[in-house]
């Protein structure tokens, strides 16, 4: 990966890599593996992703990680559509981190959109080769044959052969370079509600997550790090830990850094691992270490807030500059100004971080619930100094990802401990460790200004974003926090403001803090959309305009935005009367996956404070492959964002995170769940990713609703502290 890619570009580059894998690798692949197999006559494998075996079994090698978003269903559905089989007949096999599949990562809401063309193409290739084989067998033109339910039929003669019987002949045919893809109007699988294929093992306890990996001779380990970021432990009591029943070993892990892939640099803070016969003994042993550190070092949240404000007073890196915002603001009849504070957030996936590794004589196996198998592979190679062929990453399903499982800290832990003790080991992070050693959604500070002319038209908009750079944290050697790539990433959702305003200026002020930062579901759009869309309502109030009407006016040239906005507003009953003490707010965001989401929140203030009663969501995601999965992702994004909006905050004191578990890092529970309604805009466009886009509009929609009830603008998250 080159040093000048943003995450979005990274995602696009990754998608492009995936997109090209058939085209670029097919010739070589066809000459080698597929060619050899074709001669053997055993399987038809037109691409690395897809195979039809002589018994008719269709296998999809899944290069994406399942973390709840449904790739184990959505991607087989694409294959089933073009290959003319039932989705349940597509056997899913998790691909290992092998270069033949291209770069493997799951993020940026890019799984379906990135594999849409490659999987359709590979499936259509297989289908056309099977049709060709039948035509050859029967001595009829291929045009007279059709694929249907795992068979090829010749309607004129009533003949029919199952795919399996055609594989040997088909495998000897040339792979068509540009097979005919089905007209979406003829889709029988895609675009319809379908039950997910991976649900049954999730209702009987048989689904195996990372924490459920069990290997012969395996032991468990728990790791202690200094709670003050960037500081070493000054001491610990290894003897006390060893005295805990079940504890087998205490393994110090040296500090350092690990550069891999020509781009990433992973920090290796000094740590100590307690190895034990079972998870609980390892956790107890870890507590018994009684770790010590220099308690006077480190930053606190108040100090960081001052640093952010000071940085805002200096110049920023331009992300967008149209017209002359400064002059227009200076001449405005009405100037609207506000600043916004957004906190650090933990991911808090339900399954705490964990990884199982087995390093032994010349071989390394890593069993990782990871969003980034390629990264895990590179890390394992670097730590063990083994050649790629001796390292295998087995990607497990995972109990939530949300960006946290893109990181390598917990993968590195397991490989280092296994290497030290020469046994298979499962490193288990406690929830406390998970909350206190995350790569957090960056805190941010926003300075927004807008100018209205004498007719209350919005003529100028300026947005300054102050935040740490996620990219620079991960690639300090490759790019600076102020580099264009870092700025582009941090301004995601701010620079692309869709409103038709003639004078626009958006810039970025990077700040360095010792707090590890990472990609959190929807990334910087989660902060920038909150600031934009909450400020927009302040502008609407200043202009004495209905916030929906003003949005419609300024989005007049964006028909997709308008359709989504109108659908959400209409289904929410925008403008209909509400009882006293209730309020309604709207927000809209175009995510970088090109999906557009609008949400209308209805809130009330009762004896228990703010309550979100209802959220109406509208989305344009292109073709919704499985509308029910799209709805589930919107429901999930709304809950994830609502947890954050209401109470989510990671705060620092003495350099360490104050929160530690679900008692003080509180998330939404059943009794607080609003009624959520999801409406999908009809569209024949290629699919746009839906994993993240439900998140950004939620906080501003709720904040805008709350402001109509209290009469006070919201300028800070979480709302419980606003």
């Amino acid at each position, binding site marked *: 990966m080159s040093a000048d890619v943003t995450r979005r570009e990274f995602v696009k580059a990754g998608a492009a890599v995936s997109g090209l894998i058939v085209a670029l690798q097919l010739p070589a692949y066809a000459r080698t593996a597929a060619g050899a197999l074709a001669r053997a006559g055993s399987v038809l494998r037109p691409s690395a992703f897809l195979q039809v075996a002589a018994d008719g079994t269709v296998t999809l090698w899944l290069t994406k990680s399942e*973390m*709840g*978003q*449904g790739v184990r269903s959505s991607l087989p559905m694409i294959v089933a559509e073009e290959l003319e089989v039932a989705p349940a007949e597509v056997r899913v096999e998790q691909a290992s981190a092998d270069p033949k599949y291209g770069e493997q990562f799951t993020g940026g809401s890019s799984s379906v959109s990135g594999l849409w063309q490659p999987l359709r193409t590979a499936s259509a290739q297989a289908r056309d080769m099977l049709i060709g084989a039948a035509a050859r067998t029967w001595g009829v033109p291929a045009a007279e044959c059709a694929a249907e339910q795992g068979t090829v039929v010749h309607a004129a003669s009533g003949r029919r052969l199952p795919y399996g019987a055609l594989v040997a002949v088909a495998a000897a045919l040339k792979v068509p370079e540009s097979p005919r893809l089905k007209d979406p109007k003829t889709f029988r699988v895609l675009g319809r509600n379908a*039950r*997910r294929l*991976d*649900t*049954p*093992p*999730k*209702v*009987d*306890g*048989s689904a*195996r997550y990372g*924490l*459920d990996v*069990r290997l012969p001779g395996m032991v*468990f380990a728990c790791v202690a790090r200094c709670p003050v970021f960037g500081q070493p432990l000054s001491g610990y009591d290894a003897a006390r830990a060893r005295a805990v*029943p079940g504890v087998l070993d205490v393994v110090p892990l040296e500090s350092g850094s690990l550069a891999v892939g020509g781009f990433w640099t992973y920090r290796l803070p000094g740590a100590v691992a307690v190895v034990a016969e*079972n*998870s*609980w003994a390892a*956790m107890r042993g870890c507590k018994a270490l009684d770790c010590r550190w220099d308690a006077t070092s480190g930053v606190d949240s108040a100090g960081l807030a001052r640093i952010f404000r000071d940085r805002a007073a200096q110049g920023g890196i331009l992300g967008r500059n149209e017209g002359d915002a400064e002059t227009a603001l200076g001449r405005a009849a009405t100037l609207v100004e506000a600043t916004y504070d957004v906190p650090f957030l933990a991911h*808090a*996936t*339900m*399954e*705490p971080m964990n990884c199982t590794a087995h390093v032994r004589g010349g071989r390394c196996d890593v069993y990782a619930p990871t969003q980034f198998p390629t990264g895990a592979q590179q890390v394992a190679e670097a730590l063990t100094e083994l050649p790629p062929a001796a390292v295998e990453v087995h990607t497990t*399903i*995972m*109990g*939530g*990802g*949300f960006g946290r499982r893109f990181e390598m800290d917990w993968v590195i832990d397991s490989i280092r401990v296994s290497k030290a003790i020469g046994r298979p080991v499962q490193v288990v992070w*406690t*929830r*406390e460790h998970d909350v206190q050693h995350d790569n957090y959604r960056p805190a941010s500070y926003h300075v927004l200004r807008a100018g209205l002319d004498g007719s209350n038209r919005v003529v100028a908009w300026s947005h300054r974003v102050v935040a740490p750079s996620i990219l620079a944290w991960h690639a300090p050697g490759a790019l600076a926090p102020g580099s264009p790539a870092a700025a582009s990433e941090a301004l995601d959702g701010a620079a692309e403001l869709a409103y038709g305003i003639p004078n626009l200026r958006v810039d970025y002020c990077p700040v360095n803090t010792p707090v590890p930062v990472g990609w959190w579901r929807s990334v910087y759009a989660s902060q920038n959309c909150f600031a934009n869309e909450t400020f927009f309502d302040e502008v609407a109030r200043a202009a004495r305009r209905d916030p929906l009407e003003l949005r419609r006016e300024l989005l007049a040239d964006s028909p997709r935005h308008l359709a989504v906005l109108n659908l959400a507003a209409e289904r929410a009953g925008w403008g209909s009367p509400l009882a006293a003490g209730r309020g309604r707010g709207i927000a809209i965001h175009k995510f970088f996956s090109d999906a557009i989401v609008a949400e209308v929140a209805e809130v009330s203030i009762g004896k228990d404070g703010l309550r979100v009663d209802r959220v109406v969501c509208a989305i344009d995601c292109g073709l919704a492959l499985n509308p*029910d*999965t799209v709805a*589930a992702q919107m*429901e*999930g*994004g*709304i*809950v*994830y964002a609502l*947890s954050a909006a209401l109470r989510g905050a990671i705060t620092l004191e003495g350099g360490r995170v104050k929160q530690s*578990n*679900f*008692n003080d890092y509180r*998330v*939404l*529970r*059943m*009794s607080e*769940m609003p*009624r*959520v309604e999801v409406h999908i805009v009809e569209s024949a466009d290629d699919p746009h990713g839906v994993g993240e886009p439900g998140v950004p509009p939620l906080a501003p929609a709720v904040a805008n609703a709350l402001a109509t009830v209290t009469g006070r603008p919201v300028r800070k998250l979480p709302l419980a502290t606003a």
Partner: protein
Amino acid sequence: MAAYSLTVNGTRQTVTAPAEMPLLWVLRDLLGLTGTKYGCGIAQCGACTVHLDGAPVRSCSVPISAAADKRVTTIEGLTPNRSHALQRAWLELDVPQCGYCQSGQLMSAAALLARNPSPSDQDIDAAMNGNICRCGTYQRIRAAIHRAAGEA
């Protein structure tokens, strides 16, 4: 260390463990029943919910000494074939996303239906509030409980 006998999913088991070892880790690490999940360790998330003599408990906070000579039912023992009305409703409404919390959700819901065959929304709130889902499946869980109650 001491030996403890308990009945897990109808089978008599004897384990040797420290008295304070949580039932969760006995199930997962000593008995190999990994369907019960670790989420927080302090009875805040409900991922480890099992039935102890029929009552829902957070197994992360029940020492093995307190489970001795009792009947434990885990998700693996709820039914042998996903036939519980709740499991069927979970499948019909595609409740799970990542699925990690769903063992605990199902065990809490099963305990609710066992004592209250037609729960109201308020009953569901009260019974299910201890079970966190980070994927945000609460709305479907509620609908699935109502559906299962309707069938029961």
